[in-house]
């Protein structure tokens, strides 16, 4: 497992893409095929069921390390990861077992029918025979929740480079339908189990943000304007009777949208469509948070499919009957797209609506009301524009609505997990209410590493109370919080719920007396 441990360690340590690729490359040279296959299996979520529960592992670890539970919990809260905490507190190994990854996996899978006593013996033996990093990996393998420090794109690129093949073909192969024990690594990578040409996506055309108004864009009638939606941007491919859905993250997400796949299977023709996957109920687009409920799930229950129905709003047509249409004008592509939709009417796929307007001023008013239908703003596309590869300035613009902002004070802080476990990164903010403070939002991101360190130091010095991992801090630091929407809510003490709250900036120029009052904030609700 040493080779695998080296890989994980290297991927964890550096954030340089090149060094990550080098590490994967080294692993691909050094590891044998069964280990490489297991690596892909773990990476793509094909992990065996957990056979040893974490409560037992904790218990055994405390026994082996001879430490009391409170000390274990202190250690855990400092490390932020159970498997790692266990691997760190255990006594040094007394001998060394050399087994490769697949041998360990076989043994772990076989634990399924073992008694608790047998499991314990196995785990304790492994713990006393593996050095720290390998012990940590062993715990992760037992636990079944293994995050590897590389993006799927990074891994796919490394594989493609090592085997000198096309990246999207590799992606299709490893994301496709395969099972451990039924494939060999080499054949999997070389696409033996899939026709990778069939699934090949195009690069998405991306828009720049329109910083000022649209007046500089010239004649208003040369632009096709649509609503901008906050869902999952996707490419829907149908070729030779097969359907593939790619996300903008270059991930194959077909399995996550079975209803779309089913519908497209019924459609006539071969095509590639660019569109947005959205939750749509009672003729209304719902928040991204609704969509999140069903993303990246291993299985989608019937209930989930009914409660969170997804539709596609189609933006563009990239390929028709095997022919690349991207160089044609948007106008021409749209006509073809409309024809395609006319021939295949179905409720779960709709055309993205084209907004009609007479002047830029009228468009401004439309943009300002976009929030009321859960849209993020407008997309402006030149009618003569081709479908560009990647982001190109000039032809496509996104004109988002301005976020709402308030000033609030930091009152609770909590340490992050993983990379951020050493710092207070999770914050709760409050605003004024009848001369006191009331919590309004939790936010995680938006500060630089330097600022996080500074806030952490403040928290250390100004913690008033300790509730488990949460620190109550002196209300002193003021932050500007932006959010996309606001509504009344009975579930929140403040009486309002914010959508996508995030920290815009640390207002070091403001004091706590200057934060907003809840009554003023309620006036933002329309």
């Amino acid at each position, binding site marked *: 497992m040493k080779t695998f441990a080296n890989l994980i360690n290297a991927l964890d340590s550096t954030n340089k893409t090149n060094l990550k690729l080098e590490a994967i490359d080294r692993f691909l040279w050094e590891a044998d095929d069964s280990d490489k296959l297991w690596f892909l299996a773990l990476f793509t979520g094909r992990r065996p069921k957990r056979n040893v529960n974490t409560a037992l592992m904790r218990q055994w670890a405390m026994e082996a390390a001879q430490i009391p539970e409170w000390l274990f919990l202190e250690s855990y809260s*400092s490390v*932020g990861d159970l498997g790692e905490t266990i691997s760190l507190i255990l006594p040094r190994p007394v001998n060394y077992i050399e087994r490769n990854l697949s041998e360990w996996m076989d043994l772990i899978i076989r634990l399924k029918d073992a008694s608790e006593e047998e499991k314990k013996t196995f785990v304790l033996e492994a713990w006393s025979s593996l050095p720290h990093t390998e012990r940590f990996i062993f715990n992760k393998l037992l636990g079944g929740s293994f995050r590897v420090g590389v993006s799927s794109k990074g891994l796919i690129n490394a594989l493609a480079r090592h085997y000198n093949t096309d990246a999207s073909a590799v992606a299709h192969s490893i994301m496709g339908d395969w099972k451990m024990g039924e494939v060999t690594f080499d054949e999997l990578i070389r696409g033996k189990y899939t026709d990778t040409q069939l699934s090949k996506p195009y690069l998405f055309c991306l828009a720049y943000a329109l910083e000022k108004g649209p007046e500089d864009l010239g004649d208003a009638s040369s632009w096709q304007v649509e609503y901008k939606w906050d869902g999952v941007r996707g490419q829907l491919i149908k070729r030779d009777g097969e359907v593939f859905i790619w996300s903008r993250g270059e991930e194959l997400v077909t399995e996550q949208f079975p209803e779309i796949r089913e519908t497209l299977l019924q459609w006539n023709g071969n095509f590639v469509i660019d569109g947005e996957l959205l939750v749509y109920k009672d003729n209304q687009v719902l928040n991204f948070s609704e969509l999140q409920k069903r993303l990246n799930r291993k299985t989608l229950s019937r209930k989930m499919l009914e409660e969170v129905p997804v539709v596609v709003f189609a933006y563009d047509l990239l390929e028709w009957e095997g022919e690349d249409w991207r160089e044609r004008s948007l106008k021409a592509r749209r006509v073809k797209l409309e024809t395609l939709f006319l021939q295949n009417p179905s409720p779960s796929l709709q055309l993205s609506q084209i907004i009609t307007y007479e002047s830029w001023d009228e468009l401004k008013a439309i943009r300002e009301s976009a929030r009321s239908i859960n849209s993020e703003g407008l997309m402006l596309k030149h009618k003569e524009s081709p479908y560009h590869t990647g982001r190109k300035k000039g032809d496509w613009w996104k004109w988002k609505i301005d976020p709402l902002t308030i000033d609030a004070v930091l009152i609770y802080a909590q340490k992050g997990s993983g990379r951020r476990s050493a710092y207070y990164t999770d914050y709760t903010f409050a605003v004024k209410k009848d001369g006191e403070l009331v919590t309004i939002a939790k936010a995680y991101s938006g500060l630089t590493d330097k600022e996080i*360190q500074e806030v952490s130091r403040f928290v250390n010095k100004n913690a008033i109370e300790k509730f488990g991992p949460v620190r109550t801090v002196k209300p002193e630091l003021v932050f500007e919080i932006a959010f996309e929407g606001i509504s009344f809510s009975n579930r929140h003490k403040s009486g309002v719920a914010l959508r996508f709250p995030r920290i815009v900036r640390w207002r070091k120029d403001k004091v706590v007396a200057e934060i907003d009052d809840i009554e003023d904030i309620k006036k933002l609700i329309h």
Partner: protein
Amino acid sequence: MLHFTTKGIYCVPGRFYIDPWRPVDLAVITHGHADHARRGMKKYLCHHATVPILKSRIGSDISVQGIGYNETVNMHGVKISLHPAGHIIGSAQVRLEYKGKVTVVSGDYKIQDDGLSAPFEPVLCNEFITESTFGLPIYNWLPVQQQNEQLRQWVLNNQGNGKTSVFIGYSLGKAQRIMKALEGVAPLYVHAAIGKLNQAYESTGIRLPGYQVIDLREDVRYVDKGIVILPPSLLDSNVIRKIPNMANAICSGWMQVRGARRWRSADAGFAISDHADWYGLLDAIKATGAEKVYVTHGQTAVFTKYLNETGLSAEEVKTEFGSEEEEGDPVTSESL
């Protein structure tokens, strides 16, 4: 015998302070790190090897007396002697004897022999004042041999990939330790701040591995595939990027935890520390035979609670040591 005051640890009958943080008449200094050896004292007393460090950091005109390990100085009836603390070169535990009672102020210490500092020697005492920087059972260092081997392997691997190895470590202590570990593996280049302290040590007759001072304002292509050692303040600077084709590593006890390694996002992190690890602290305390333990900077609350559960009488003490080392901020710490 001791009072923990707002100026520092005060020896009442001896009328002197140990590692004070406000100006006093006489300061006994455990070692040269900035949180233990501050400016403004009328007179300093420390180990011989620490004298040039204090002069280099604080000023050449300070009044300082150097003594050797196990040498005794009398102060108003209190017998003061210094004993190796193994933390950095010249670091000492301060043993105080008054009317048959012995108290030891250990400053910062480690049990492992780094091959440079005089190795830690347990001193029997009634009261022991201990640090607790790494006072959690998750901190367990590998044996020095293995640590050094890791560093060497990493450098060799970098050389194989045509890369220069850049180490980030505290100028006083860690830098010299890295030099020692990598002696003979490749040419050593150190930052001027480290060079200055190296000179201070060499002036007392301590032999360090050969090195060259690197000037990052100039073209530094000559360091190609060599080893460069820089102080932590340069980690996030633009200067470090002037070194072409490099991989960087942080050497610090905090690097034991994956989250800390990922947070710093250096290319490698090595858990190498000049502080005692969990078992190091426990063993050291046990070896003193002390009835009473005072716990200073670090994991004070947790460590004190644990000591009390094991049957010792332990108490937390608030000091201004290791102010940069507290739990919330392992990265800008003195002990990097």
